[in-house]
Each structure stands twice: as C-alpha cells, then as structure tokens.
C-alpha cells in the first residue's frame, strides 16, 4: 500500500535514467553529419561519410510540413515533423553510394550518402 505514492517518483527517476543513458549513448558517437531539409530538398544532397564507421545523421527539417527520411539501401525510415530535428544512426557502411529520399516529397527530396 505504501508503495502507491512512491510509484510516480520511481517512474520519473526511471525515465530520467533511461533518458540520460540514451542521450549519453547518442552523444558518444564519433561522427556527426548534419542534413537540412528546406523547400522539400535535402541540403547537401550529397553527404560524404567515412566508410566502416557508425555515423550519427542529424536531420533538421526547416519546412513547415513533415517529411519521411527513407532509404532502402541504408535500411532506414523516420518521420521528421515540420521544424523538428531527428537523429538517425547509419552504418558502418562499406564504401559506396547509398541513395535516400523524402517519401512525402519524392519528386524533389532526393539525396545520396557516399561512404569512402
């Protein structure tokens, strides 16, 4: 019975610990690459990353509307709401080029990751 009042605090602490652990993991990545979405286009459209290394891709959607970052060759898909930043880990990749696109605006939102 006494536990009931303690539960929300315990839960908050738990969430905080998880959050800290995860953000710790996320910032521990060695390679950050920033990608911007503007006017339904990726900037830069060609992203160079080191091969055989994990890369933390930070995608900043500067449009008002949501976009879905999608890539079959990278095996990734993630929604990025309008104005939001999202983190996507990719790799380690073999040297080569990996196409990606914005599913919601496929006509213009095209890009490629080049691992070398």
């Amino acid at each position, binding site marked *: 019975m006494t536990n009931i009042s303690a539960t929300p605090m315990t839960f908050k602490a738990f969430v905080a610990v998880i959050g800290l652990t995860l953000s710790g*993991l996320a910032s521990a990545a060695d390679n950050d690459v920033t990608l911007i979405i503007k006017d339904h286009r990726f900037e830069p459209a060609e992203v160079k990353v080191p091969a055989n290394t994990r890369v933390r891709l930070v995608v900043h959607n500067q449009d008002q509307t949501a976009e879905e970052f999608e890539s079959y060759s990278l095996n990734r898909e993630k929604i990025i709401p309008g104005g939001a930043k999202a983190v996507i880990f990719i790799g380690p990749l073999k040297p080569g080029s990996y196409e990606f696109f914005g599913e919601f605006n496929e006509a213009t939102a095209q890009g490629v990751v080049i691992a070398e």
Partner: protein
Amino acid sequence: MFATGVIVFRETLEAALFIGIIAAATRGLPLRSRWLAAGVVAGALGSLMLAAGMGQVSAWADGIGQDLMNVAILSIALLMLAWHCVWVSPQAGKMVMEAKRMGHAALEGSSTLWALSLAVALSVLREGAETVLFVSGFLSGSSEGLLMVLSGAGVGLATGSLAGIMIYWGLARIKTQHLFAVTNVLILILAGSLASQLAKTLLQAGIVMRWSTPLWDGSALLANDSTLGTLLHALVGYEARPAGLQIIFYLGTISLIWFAAKQMKASIDNKQATAAAVS
C-alpha cells in the same frame, strides 16, 4: 492526387493486412467484431493525437523520441501477439465450439480478445499517425486542391483496406478445423515481422550498436519498393537488406513463441487426458 493515393495505400496496406489476418484468426469468437472495431477506432483516434504531438515526441531523448515511442508500440504489440499464440490460441478451437453450442451467450471467450484488440489499435496507431502527418502536410504545402488531396487519400485508404478484406475472405474460405492452424502460422510470422522492425528501430536510434551490417543484399532479386516486395514486407516482414540484428530478432521471436505454444498445448492436452481418465 495519384502520388497521395500511392503513399496512403502503402501506409494503409500493412495495418489492413494485419487486421484481416487477426479477424480471420478470431472467427466465430463471441463479440469479436466489436473488439476489433474498438481497436481500429482507438488506434485511429490515437493516431490523430500522436500526429499532433509528433513535434514534441521527436525532440525527446536528444532526437530519438519517436524511435523510443515506436519501440514501446512494437514491443507491446509483439507481447500481445505472443500472448495470443501461447495462451489463447491453444484453447481457441475449444472456445469456438463452446460458443457454437451455447450460443453467443458464452461471453467468457471475449475476455481473451483484448490482447488482439490492443495489437490492432497499435498497428493502426503507427501507420495512422504517419498517414495523418503526410496528408496534413500535403494539404498545407501542395498546389493541388483540398478535394484532390482528400480524394487521393480516400482512394489509397480504400484500396489498402480492400487488400485486408481480400486476405480475410481468402482465409475465411478455409474450413474451421484448418483455419486456426493457418492463422496461427500467419500470426507467428507477423510477430517475427514486428520483432524485425523493433530491431531496425533500435539500430536506427543507436540504442543497439551491434549487428547493424546487412547480412545479404537481395535488392537485385526482389527490391523493397517493388509491388511484391511491398506486399511481402507487410505480410512476412520481407527486407531486401536485413541487418544481422533483424534476423536474430525475427528467428528468435518465432522459435520462442512456437516452442512456448507447443509446451502450452501439450500441457492442455495432458490435463484433458487426465480429466477424461478420471471421469
């Protein structure tokens, strides 16, 4: 209008096939339609709320909030399917027989449907939130008129749902005594598919860092964006370039659930045999 329709169709397809299979798996159970409809409605309402709050959710935990949300959604849905396969399904045949004998007054059976109802709600929630974000973005940013966008979305939703209805009718033609064997296998594979998506989400968010390299590349043989690839992705979780972790999760989940269900069935048969011997 065409582009809107195609994307809404793709988002709808996965949830529709999921619901079609679940509906076939629960055929004959009392109050089943109500439970499943409640799941769809709850999922649809939830997806409107999730879409509205997606901006906040995405910013959580340093940009991987959405992945954490998906991890939670996929894990709960996976648990519900596992619970059904292991606990409910070995007794489902008996429950349908009882429901038939006693008429639909045998309502105890319906208490086992909450798990699948929740799994349906979560499936609709995930695909629905994406669809809402896409359509609302298209409405505000597109040169096409409101009517064109909405009718495109409507056509996509209708054709996607049709796929679900078709798989349901296909399965419904199977005789009752074989139906559960077939739907059990399908639900088992759906569970594997959810586990594979869970693995992908963990890798994408950087929560798990190992086994992220694709084990093979089948994209030349069957690409993920081909029609068959899309269908197989929705049905059995097909990936042209699966990460090692996805394969581990997929096969591990299927064998674990299969083994547990087998144990459970053996223990139920045992009890029945003992009961028969005593009487």
